């Protein structure tokens, strides 16, 4: 069916070395597993990725990639092809019937490298992550058609049963990162509860190849004339492919609805009889919002959909999974390097459970708006949509999905609380805002300066010493004004910098602590806290 993409069969090479104990095995080579592997590899941790399949994602699936995951992909050296191929967008429009009732802009301020969102079919994204993985050489091994079929805890390591094309074998690993998706077989093997709410509605996804006059925006219709009493969502993808989601209702037959004779009339009714289009991919889905009670189970750590599942409205699935990997990789690297205690990994739970609950909350609310559960909630929903045309107050109540933004960790045990007042959006536990800089005579971005190690970012910093070493953990000093120039004054504005103001920034570009003066003892204490050593 697909015209714009041809699946390659990935080589199912047998794993040669089955004897040596692996520091980390990642199960699942989707967007989350691959991000996890890349992040560990760039931190110098050898990583083995096992995937039970031998193709990239079948279907466009995870389509919308948000600013923060793009910043993470950029840190890992693979954002450029994504930005080039993907469709950048930031405007969302909501229609009732044929009338525009609300519009939002997801990136209302300039001075950021990354767009609010790109739309990129998941198979393209995975291809790009795999290409990057291959650049990293022997440190990152990918083995297709290798499936983890058993997990046994042996105290200081795990014994994994692996099913490969040439038979079953046992492999030792210190850590297993389960990125094996919403139906996670590893979660089943461990028998850990995965609880939440299932939603009684079904949706049809149709990927359509066509030349269409729609702009690169997210368009959402409630009750349009071409699909009465239900909702429809339209996104532009790469290669002139368009994603159209039709709400079908709970009574729809998922097998029948997938058939072209059912799908094509729906599309013709929406696009008009004269629009030429071809179907690329069709799927019918229903969804649930649920999560594990905790993501770390001894030496097995869950990330992405295996740990938490949300509805697709808001593009919170893959986006939050990539941020799980971003959160976990530097911690695991420090633990494996003997520079932080295993307790640091518990902060992954503390921080990412908060994010999962945030996502589940947003996702459940959007679903309650899109799929009202009873006559009263339907009346409220319809009243909001009708009032919105003429009355501004009703517009923010419209919820067609709140799009993925990073969840801050204000209550994280890794934070050192402020002792002095700061203005602006930054605070301990937030991800660092980007800003333009000038470095080495060239224009660049602040986030490029905040990679790899901990960074102490100081405005001025005449008394700032050489890079710090806190019990073996490196902390690079970045002097704003000396090492890089705050070319548009946006670092000072976004971080409320005054001369001497110092931020301690984690390897995942989150604020750990900040002060109004540069003090190496305070930095060392905050860094110990941020690595769970006090």
């Amino acid at each position: 069916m697909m015209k714009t993409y041809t699946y390659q069969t990935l080589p199912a090479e047998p794993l040669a070395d089955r004897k040596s104990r692996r520091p980390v095995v990642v199960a699942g080579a989707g967007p989350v597993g691959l991000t996890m592997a890349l992040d560990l590899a760039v931190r110098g941790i050898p990583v083995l990725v096992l995937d039970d399949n031998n193709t990239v994602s079948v279907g466009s699936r995870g389509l919308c990639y948000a600013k923060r995951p793009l910043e993470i992909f950029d840190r890992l050296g693979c954002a450029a092809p994504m930005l080039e191929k993907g469709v950048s967008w930031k405007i969302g429009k909501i229609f009732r019937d044929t009338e525009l009732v609300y519009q939002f802009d997801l990136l209302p301020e300039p001075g950021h490298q990354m767009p609010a969102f790109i739309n990129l079919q998941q198979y393209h994204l995975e291809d790009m992550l795999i290409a990057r993985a291959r650049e990293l050489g022997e440190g990152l091994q990918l083995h297709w058609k290798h499936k983890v079929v058993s997990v046994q805890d042996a105290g200081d390591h795990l014994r994994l049963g692996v099913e490969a094309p040439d038979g079953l074998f046992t492999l030792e690993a210190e850590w297993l990162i389960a990125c094996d998706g919403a139906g996670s077989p590893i979660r089943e093997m461990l028998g850990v509860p995965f609880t939440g709410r299932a939603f009684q509605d079904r949706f049809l996804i149709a990927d359509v190849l066509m030349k269409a006059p729609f702009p690169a925006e997210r368009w959402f219709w409630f009750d349009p004339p071409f699909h009465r009493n239900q909702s429809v969502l339209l996104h532009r993808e790469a290669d002139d492919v368009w994603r159209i989601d039709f709400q079908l209702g709970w009574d729809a037959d998922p097998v029948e609805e997938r058939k072209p004779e059912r799908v094509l009339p729906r599309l013709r009714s929406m696009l008009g009889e004269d629009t030429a289009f071809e179907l690329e991919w069709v799927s019918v889905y229903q969804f649930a919002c649920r999560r594990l009670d905790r993501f770390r189970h001894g030496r097995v750590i869950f990330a992405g959909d295996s740990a938490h599942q949300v509805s697709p409205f808001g593009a919170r699935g893959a986006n939050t999974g990539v941020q799980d990997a971003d959160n976990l990789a530097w911690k695991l690297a420090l633990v494996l390097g003997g520079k932080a205690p295993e307790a640091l990994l518990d902060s992954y739970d503390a921080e990412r459970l908060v994010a999962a609950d945030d996502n589940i909350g947003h996702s459940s609310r959007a679903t309650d708006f899109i799929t009202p559960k009873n006559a009263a909630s339907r009346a409220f929903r319809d009243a909001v949509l009708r009032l919105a045309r003429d009355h501004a107050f009703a517009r923010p109540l419209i919820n067609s999905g709140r799009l993925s933004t990073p969840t801050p960790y204000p209550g994280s045990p890794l934070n050192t609380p402020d002792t002095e007042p700061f203005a602006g959006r930054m605070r301990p536990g937030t991800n660092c805002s980007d800003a333009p800089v000038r470095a080495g005579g060239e224009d660049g971005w602040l986030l490029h300066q905040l990679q790899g190690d901990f960074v102490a970012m100081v405005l001025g910093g005449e008394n700032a010493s050489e890079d710090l070493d806190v019990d073996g953990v490196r902390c690079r000093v970045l002097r704003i004004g000396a090492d890089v120039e705050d070319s548009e004054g946006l670092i000072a504005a976004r971080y409320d910098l005054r001369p001497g103001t110092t931020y301690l920034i984690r390897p995942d570009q989150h604020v750990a602590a900040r002060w109004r003066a540069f003090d190496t003892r305070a930095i060392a204490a905050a860094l110990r806290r941020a690595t769970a050593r006090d």
Partner: protein
Amino acid sequence: MPLNTQPNIENPDAFYQRLVELHQDRSEEQSRLINASLVLLLANHVGDASVLEEAMRIAAQTADQP
């Protein structure tokens, strides 16, 4: 400011009559929409989350009364 549950409407009978008239010759579905709109308009006017919460609490109780 707490939720005012003391008499505050100048002409109670006239207000009540207007409320009933809103639903005259309306289908059940239309009536639900009118009521929902009314709740939303007034809730936005009030704004204060604690006042709204208190009103919702008392409103919910009426469904549990015998």
